[in-house]
């Protein structure tokens, strides 16, 4: 029923750091999330891409050294496509994603608190009709816990270098575009 107290406290401390970062990153704000989806505010993309590149470098370095294991989710195609579509519609309507919805509630936002109740209700629907959802999940096959390096036969470090180069190029272009837009505004 419970993890050890150490592990619970570790989770709590990690969550405090994550919630703090979400709030300082302004992704607790409805207009920032919806602004990204309307392609007018690029905060979400900047945060996510930076987190992915920085995270990948450290995690793959530690994985290479044998310090950590990977935690890959299986590529259940039906579940990811159907789930991704439903998630996308929900996120546009909500204006927060699940993690930032919890953080937005911490910032005081009442609609995010109602959103958390909705998240719990959605989880209840998933648990209650679990066998039916599994049919959807597995409808289009399961590729297993596959990574891009395994799939393509290209080294993880080539992927990470390409990702980092692409992200930096995109950030430079974005910053230039935003500076220009501020000038004309």
């Amino acid at each position: 029923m419970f993890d050890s107290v150490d592990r619970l406290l570790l989770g709590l401390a990690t969550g405090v750091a994550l919630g703090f970062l979400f709030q300082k990153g302004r992704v607790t704000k409805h207009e920032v999330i919806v602004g990204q989806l309307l392609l007018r505010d690029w905060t979400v993309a900047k945060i996510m891409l930076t987190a992915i590149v920085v995270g990948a470098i450290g995690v793959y370095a530690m994985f290479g050294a044998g310090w950590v294991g990977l935690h890959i989710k299986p590529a259940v195609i039906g579940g990811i496509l159907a789930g991704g579509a439903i998630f996308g519609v929900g996120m546009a309507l909500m204006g927060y994603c699940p993690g930032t919805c919890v953080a937005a509630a911490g910032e005081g936002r009442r609609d995010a608190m109602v959103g958390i109740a909705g998240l719990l209700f959605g989880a209840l629907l998933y648990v209650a009709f679990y066998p039916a959802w599994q049919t959807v999940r597995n409808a289009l096959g399961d590729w297993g816990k596959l990574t891009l390096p395994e799939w393509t036969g290209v080294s993880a470090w080539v992927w990470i270098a390409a990702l980092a180069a692409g992200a930096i190029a995109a950030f430079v272009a974005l910053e230039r575009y935003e500076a220009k837009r501020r000038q004309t505004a």
Partner: protein
Amino acid sequence: MSNPLTAKSWSPYVVGAGIGILSWVVFYTANTALGITTAFENTSALAAKAVAESQLEGYFSANAKKPPKIDWQWMLVVGVLVGAWLSSWLSGDRNRISVPELWQRRFGPSVPLRWAVAFAAGALMMLGARLAGGCTSGNAISGGLQLAVSGWMFALTFFPIAIITALLLYGRKGDQSHV
């Protein structure tokens, strides 16, 4: 130079790098990846078990090896609430609002409408995340940084659909035409 803890916002690159480094810590100290929605599944499963366990046989027999529990991730979600509260309290960036401004300009000030949509949207997001195996954190960021096919496939599915939905909801010019 002002105190960063009381600043209302940090550069998105600093925040992104912080989340990336926090991921290293999570892999090393907790032997897992950042994620949010499994904790919600566990909460609902435990609550439902207390009321109507017999109705949930399909769930519990399929998850016999990993029964739902109050775990690291459950406390992580509690921590996210606390951390965001702490950050907003330190900077005075509290927003006790029922209807966000952008929503209000497009759909009006009705609190019941916004809350009804927020509830339904929350349920949709959670269903989608559980079907896919994770949300923006667990699938897109944690899966993305591990170069997981699942994480990238999820991100490349939900982002375009969220963008199309938002454009349909708010129009290409968003709220600007209503100001």
